[in-house]
């Protein structure tokens, strides 16, 4: 593994095969806890940790696991890692633990974790696997963060609300009130807002890709409209 390959792994995780907006895996936490940046990023980091660890620990043992119990064993390992993370958060970040609620244990069934284990860790050696897990996790975290910021600003007009839950009381003053005297646009922090926000992010990515492709071709795209003459012809 050379540097380029690691670069590729990260490019894949963060952009090309981004779990959240390309593969559409790991959607439930992505949508459910992205109502504020702090929640979103915290869960994203927890997931990244689990993904890196699970890939790291499964890659070395992959050849010793018989095929028929592959999935149960992988899930078992993931479940242990998740539960460990859960206890740690419960002990040392109680507020956040309460807010993230059921979504911490659900990292176990977060499709993206098992998907990466299956697609990458079960075919590669430990270090690249860990990197892949981390990259995918960070890709998810990035989407979570952007979506969280979008929803929080539109929904409540703030950023980083609840940061004290993650960083302790001293962070209480760090909450940004982007729009003062904001009435709040509730839909953004409710489930519909999550879906539509993610839809917009996916479209945004498509748009960036399209623009890059157009630039690469550096000639105007074919006009999408037929001229009226074409109608007669």
């Amino acid at each position, binding site marked *: 593994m050379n540097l380029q390959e690691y670069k590729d792994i990260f490019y894949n995780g963060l952009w090309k095969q981004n779990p959240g907006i390309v593969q559409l895996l790991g959607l439930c936490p992505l949508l459910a806890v992205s109502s504020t940046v702090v929640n979103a990023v915290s869960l994203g980091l927890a997931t990244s940790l689990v993904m890196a660890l699970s890939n790291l620990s499964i890659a070395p043992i992959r050849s010793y696991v018989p*095929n*028929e*119990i592959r999935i*149960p064993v992988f899930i*078992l390992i993931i479940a242990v890692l998740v539960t460990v993370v859960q206890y740690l958060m419960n002990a040392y970040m109680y507020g956040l633990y309460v807010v993230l609620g059921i979504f911490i244990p659900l990292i176990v069934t977060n499709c993206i974790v098992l998907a990466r284990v299956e697609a990458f860790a079960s075919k590669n050696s430990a270090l690249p696997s860990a990197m892949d897990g981390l990259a995918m996790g960070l890709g998810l975290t990035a989407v979570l963060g952007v979506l969280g910021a979008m929803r929080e600003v539109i929904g409540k007009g703030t950023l980083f609300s609840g940061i004290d839950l993650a960083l302790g009381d001293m962070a209480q003053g760090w909450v940004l009130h982007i729009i003062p005297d904001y009435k709040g646009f509730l839909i953004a922090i409710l489930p519909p807002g999550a879906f539509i926000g993610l839809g917009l992010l996916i479209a945004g990515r498509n748009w960036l890709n399209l623009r890059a492709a157009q630039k690469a071709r550096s000639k105007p795209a*074919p006009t*999408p*409209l*037929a*001229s*009226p003459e*074409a*109608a007669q012809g």
Partner: protein
Amino acid sequence: MITALLVMIGISLALGAVLGFSAIKFKVEGNPLVEKIDAVLPQTQCGQCGYPGCKPYAEAIAKGEADINKCPPGGEEGIRKLADLLGVDYKPFGEGAAPKAKAVAFIDEQTCIGCTLCLQACPVDAIAGAAKQMHTIIASECTGCELCVEPCPVDCISMKLIPEDISNWKWPYPVYALTPVRNEARKVEAS
């Protein structure tokens, strides 16, 4: 701690037994998917997909070794059908793999020396002839795979576009003001 271990041992013992049992008892048999994929492929047998024929390509797809966008004769429609069948996303052709217009081979009767090389190359027996005699392409059976062009020692085989006539003419996609052109490709073909 001990109870915990016992409980988990119990669960996993039961589960492992079930899985081990089922793994042997219910082995997956032959893959019916290959037939389904093969039915979608155009059967040109041209090998442009990098496999020695349509069936081998179908097998490769079924095994997950080959992408679905490798068969130019199948066209985009073919990829779409494969994507549907396999439940994966449509994928456009790569650079330089775009499908060509339909054509049939044509043997220049004056130049043909009757070497039978093309006859042996044709995967669908679309060439009629015998040694030392002029060969003819049976146009209605020719799939346009071009496999006979290469072997001809005197280069007398050329590919001819199938001309459009009333019997194979298609109504063009209606293009009218206000509606975006969805079928750029089709329009070019039809005009």
